[in-house]
């Protein structure tokens, strides 16, 4: 016992509501509707997930663009023990996925059974959750896309 760290359970919470604004809000609402949105940057490229501002200059951005629903894995790793708070209850891939029509990748899970099924450059497509509420977990994850 003497060597065990002292333990006391404590619930940390943030009991406030936040508004997500015209861009993040639109993206999250899009998820609820089963639509993936990016935003056009000053140089014409498309950023997904969208931000209200240009990361390099802070300039406001507003032109939303539909992207996906398939894309390409830019980088990946494997999560053997997902956190209990995460949307996943079994081992899964974690990847940066660049959706078709987008120029920046987004992070989400890849639903496969083993890291052997993952590779950089592989094509994947979105899987929607059955119940959607305007939350990043409205995307259940990505799965490998069979060549059409």
């Amino acid at each position, binding site marked *: 016992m003497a060597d065990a760290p002292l333990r006391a359970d404590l619930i940390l919470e943030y009991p406030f509501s936040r508004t997500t604004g015209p861009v993040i809000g639109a993206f999250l609402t899009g998820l609820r509707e089963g639509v993936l949105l990016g935003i056009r940057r000053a140089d014409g490229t498309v950023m997904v997930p969208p931000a209200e501002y240009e990361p390099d200059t802070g300039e406001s951005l507003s032109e939303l663009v539909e992207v996906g629903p398939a894309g390409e894995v830019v980088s990946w790793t494997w999560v053997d023990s997902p956190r209990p708070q995460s949307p996943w209850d079994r081992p899964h891939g974690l990847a940066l996925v660049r959706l078709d029509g987008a120029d920046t990748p*987004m992070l989400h899970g890849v639903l496969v059974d083993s890291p052997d099924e993952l590779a950089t450059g592989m094509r994947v497509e979105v899987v929607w959750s059955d119940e959607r509420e305007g939350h990043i977990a409205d995307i259940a994850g990505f799965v490998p896309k069979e060549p059409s």
Partner: protein
Amino acid sequence: MREVAVVATASRQVPVLTGTTEVQLMVPLIESARAAVGLTQEDIGFTCSGSSDFLAGQAFSFVHTLDAVGAVPPISESHVEMDGAFALYEAWVKLQIGEVDTALVYSYGKSSPGSLRDVLALQLDPYYLAPLWPPADAVAALQARLLLESGAASPEELAGIAVRSQHHAAANPNAVRSSTDVTVGDVLAEAPVADPLRPSDLAAEADGGCAVVLAAGDRASDLCERPAWIRGIDHRIDAHALGVRDLTRAPSAALAASRAGAGGDRLDLVELHSPTTSQEAILVREIGLDDTTVVNPSGGALAGCTLMAAGLMRIAEAADRITGGTADRALAHATSGPCLQQNLVCVLEGA
């Protein structure tokens, strides 16, 4: 610019701190750092600390730790919810203003009672990333794979960084992971924990704290035979969203090193706050180091990484080698955020 120097340091780091509060941890460290230069708290012009309420599980947790400083009679004091290296930056700015000549900087982290990977998930974007609770080592692994597949580093090079850290750490009593005989082959034989990162690629989690005394101008020379003069210090930040930056680079590290004057002369050593071997490879490239510079003589953060203190410990390790006369010019680095998002560089010189 006013000349400011590190004149005393004290650090302690262990794998798991048991039966000891943060206050009890810091009392002897703060006392030791002040006493090394014959100061009491009444002689300190400004006190600045770094710690995390997310580790303590309590808002304004740093207020308790002021008991380790002594806040009566009232002191001039500040706190950052960042690594102590950033608290040192604030103290350096305060000394530049010129109203005080001495400062005490300290930071600490005790992550063992909770879950560090959960705490680190909360530093990510609150809408797009944090609700997915990606483990910090998995986020770093996405960066490591990009680095490896770009050809900028090989698995053998990353294993070599791990080996060098463990060998150097054998001489560091505050290191929590060290080995005199581990080889690149041994590291490459480890099973990945966050593919492609292996256990030895990830910094060893630790509990600990660090205290540093700064002094300006003649006061530094009076207090210390060979002060470690801060000849440049700079903090830069890259974009928060992981997808909008090239994760194989850290432009903010290169800019901070340049602005701190790192390239002005030969560096005897660098102490890098790199949470993974892949991030160390990126930092070496961004800072522009060659083979004449010893990287992480203490083992670096890989050999023991106390959240909120690992960066300040890098400055302390570099300063100690200058004060002790074994180095003339050193660079210390601290990072914050995911995948080297924020970088602070401090250049120290003995003369």
